[in-house]
């Protein structure tokens, strides 16, 4: 539409991600490296799934709309499964790397914990996924026109931006939960993450009914957020402590020995 819409949608889509990057990752070079590596892994999974999809479209009957729709669903499902597979692959790689880093470094303890790695890799996946979702749309939103001349809904840009924000945050939460579940060999949690990812992706088949897509997506986002919070070591008690602004010394002094 114009520059206003372009910047508005960019900030909506990438705002939380940028904030997280700025305050938690940017200062630590090791975290930046693992973020970028995570993004790269996501990119490779996308490449593989698009290769498979491309070949299958070539073989298929291009005229039949039902077949194309079926292929699209197949493509989405395959892509989600590949992404989660690559997340698992990244987890394995990071475990090995961590051991290597430990032997190389002088210190006794690991420079970065697996929990931080989970958060950073999830965010990396999210960044790349968000970029591929929305950059194309943002480029067109800078032009003078808005969607709608063929009868589509006008809110295309806005809902794309909100969906992207949800996806980025969801990837982060999935990363945290997934890695933690892999550490504890909790395979039902891993399966649940995959299922939730599939559900969110398949929600978008309901577009252009944007309410039916966005509302459940945000509900799931909230749920995943709570789960990830608890996985990362949070609890209601901590929130209460935080909100009543008790400081660290008080906490240390009240800390019960294990």
């Amino acid at each position, binding site marked *: *539409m*114009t520059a*206003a*819409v372009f910047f*508005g*949608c960019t*900030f909506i889509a990438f*705002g*939380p991600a*940028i*904030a*997280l990057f*700025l*305050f*938690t990752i940017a200062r630590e070079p090791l975290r930046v490296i693992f973020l970028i590596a995570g993004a790269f892994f996501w990119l490779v999974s*996308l490449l593989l*799934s*698009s290769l498979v*999809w491309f070949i299958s*479209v070539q073989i298929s009957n291009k005229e039949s709309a039902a077949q194309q729709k079926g292929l*699209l669903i197949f*493509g*989405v499902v395959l892509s989600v499964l590949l992404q989660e597979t690559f997340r698992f692959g990244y987890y394995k790689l990071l475990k090995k790397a961590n051991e290597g880093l430990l032997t190389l470094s002088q210190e006794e*303890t*690991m420079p970065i*914990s697996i*929990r931080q790695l989970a958060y950073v890799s999830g965010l990396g996946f999210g960044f790349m*996924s968000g970029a*591929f*979702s*929305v950059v194309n749309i943002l480029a*067109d939103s800078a032009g*003078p*026109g*808005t*969607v*709608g*001349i*063929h009868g*589509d809904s*006008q809110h295309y840009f*806005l809902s*794309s*931006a909100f*969906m992207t924000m949800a*996806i980025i945050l969801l990837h982060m939460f999935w990363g945290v939960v997934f890695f933690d579940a892999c*550490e504890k060999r909790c395979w039902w949690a891993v399966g649940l993450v995959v299922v939730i990812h599939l559900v*969110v992706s398949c*929600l*978008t*088949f309901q577009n252009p009914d944007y309410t039916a897509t966005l509302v459940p997506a945000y509900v799931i986002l909230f749920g995943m957020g709570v789960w990830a919070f608890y996985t*990362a*070591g949070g609890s209601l008690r*901590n*929130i209460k402590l*935080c909100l009543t602004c*008790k400081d*660290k010394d008080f*906490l240390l002094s009240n800390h019960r020995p*294990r």
Partner: protein
Amino acid sequence: MDLLSDKWIVNVVLCLLFVGNCNSVEKKIYINLNETFPCVRLLNATHQIGCQSSLSGDVGVLHLLESEENLDWVLRTGPNPPYMVILESTLFTRYRPCSLKNGSSRVAGVLAVQPTSNPPEGFSPHTSCPNENTGVYSETYGPSYAHCNVTMWNPLGTGISYEEFDFPIFSVKDDNDTEVIRRCYMEHNRAVNGSTPQYPLCAMQLMSHMAAVTDTATCMRRNAPTFSLAPDGVCDPLGDANIWASTKPLNSSTKGHKDGVSVVIAATKLDSRSFFFDVAPGADSAATGLVALLAAASALHNATAELNRTILYTFFNGETFDYIGSSRMVYDMAKNDFTVDLDNIHSILEVGQVALGPDSRLWLHSDPVSKRNSSVNVEPNVTQPLPPSSFQRFLLERPIPGVVIENHQTSFTNKYYQSMFDNAEYLKLNYPPNLTPEEQLELVTDSAKALTEVATTVARGLYLQAGGELAQMSRIQADSELVSKMLYTFLVRVNNSWFDQLVKSDWTGVLSELMLYEINTSERKVKTTEPALMVQCILANLTGSIANITEVYFCPFSSPNFLFLCCQIYSYLWVQGPVRPNSTERDSFCVRSLVRQSKALSPAFELSEYTSKNYSTWAESRWSAIKGRIFLVASHDLEMLTLGVGVGVLLMSLLLTYIVSSKADILFSSGREPTNATY
């Protein structure tokens, strides 16, 4: 991965297969206009004319101008300026763009829908006194005739072709695309019962940014390679090629005066124009004259051996723009840079607009100022100056006797002079629609018959001028079938079997659309455009002879611009020939003729006098892209709301993240952490 990304991949991949618009989001937003004819910018020594858009195109809310009252909405009362005005076909000719020009801050552009049939009241965007400053009549020569004091040649002329507009004006045909535009307007922009239309509104963007400004001297200065912003140049001088042929061989390697050669020039013009770029059928103003002269040349082909004077058939290009072609030829002759010079010229016969209706007649115009030294039979009695014609440029140099043949006694009878409506329909070339193209080609219409009479008259006049005997005159007769085929080729359809026979097969595809308009030159090399090449081919076939065995080797086989191998005396053309029956092969042969090209670039550009008052200084601007598209626009408030929400989300998330990260050790310090973790 969500569907949005998947869809993107799908479409990128799909588009890599089908080269075209590679973006499905763009397809959701824009509908491109397919065939548009813009109005472009032309410059001369003192002015710039035509239209200009901003660099990335002008955007405006659509408004369909159905009647004169709607104009108020655009200029004053409409709540969402700027507007993109769509002129319907009925208003197209009656409507003066002057009032649109006055409100140009609220007008983003104009889209004119071409009427499907010619407007009956006539329409001419040209000036009412064409080429008034470069003709022969001036303060020093016939001052009472200068500036159309005696006769206003083009009374219907409004002069809008020579005005300057700072918004783009495009023209489209009335077809499916235009229906889409109208529907978009009806659905979104129509004000019902006085209420203001609600957003989102239908809008259009027209892009036709012209690189050149001010005048020719400025743009030629900016063309120089040291000016880095536009390394390719910002404008091109208008130029093309004149086609000429003589009836007797003339040695062209020796230029200047030729002793003992007396030449009768038979001249006509090849080009026309209209308000829009690339649209210039020029039926009455140019095509009739050149078809008549071609037919006359064909009729005289067998009779020229016995004539004691040479006839020089010249087809001048660029006459619409201050006599580019004829001024160049006269300049060359005066400088002794042409095969003959001005002293060799005995007289001039020019064929102007010669479309004849059932009750029109032919008139001969001559110059009242110059001494009459001709042996032409009819001398007009009225003291009327010459109409705009190439003959005037010859008179500027020498008082040569000559006449101009026209179909009007005083003002033009052509109601559509230099407009897009001067087409086959105006000449009443009515081909019944149930005929195939081949049958249409063979059909001899009444207009063709009338034009054949004109051609016969021209041929006989030339015969007598060149020294032929009166008694032999009656055997000279133009061929009406030839005239009809030529009219069909120039005005209806180039791709036909008669023209196919004349032209090499790899060239046939290029000539799909005829326009009698000067195309700008590129890289300062004069390029010969299709009409000139067509005339060259036809003239060679009509006045040439089949080459003998030894000369076949001169015939070139290569690209269209190098069709003619030049020559000291003869030029050679490879002709495809007719298709053999029951086969797809053709009997090709080589034709030897006396047809040549000569450069039609104004002397002002040769002499680098870009502010010259004597010669044409017309140049055409260059542009990068010309396109138009329609889409919906959202209200400004919604856009600002989106920006506000975005900024709010960003600030909110920055705040939250700061708070959470500063309290992270408290928030995430539950006892469930693994023992080897560190913070």
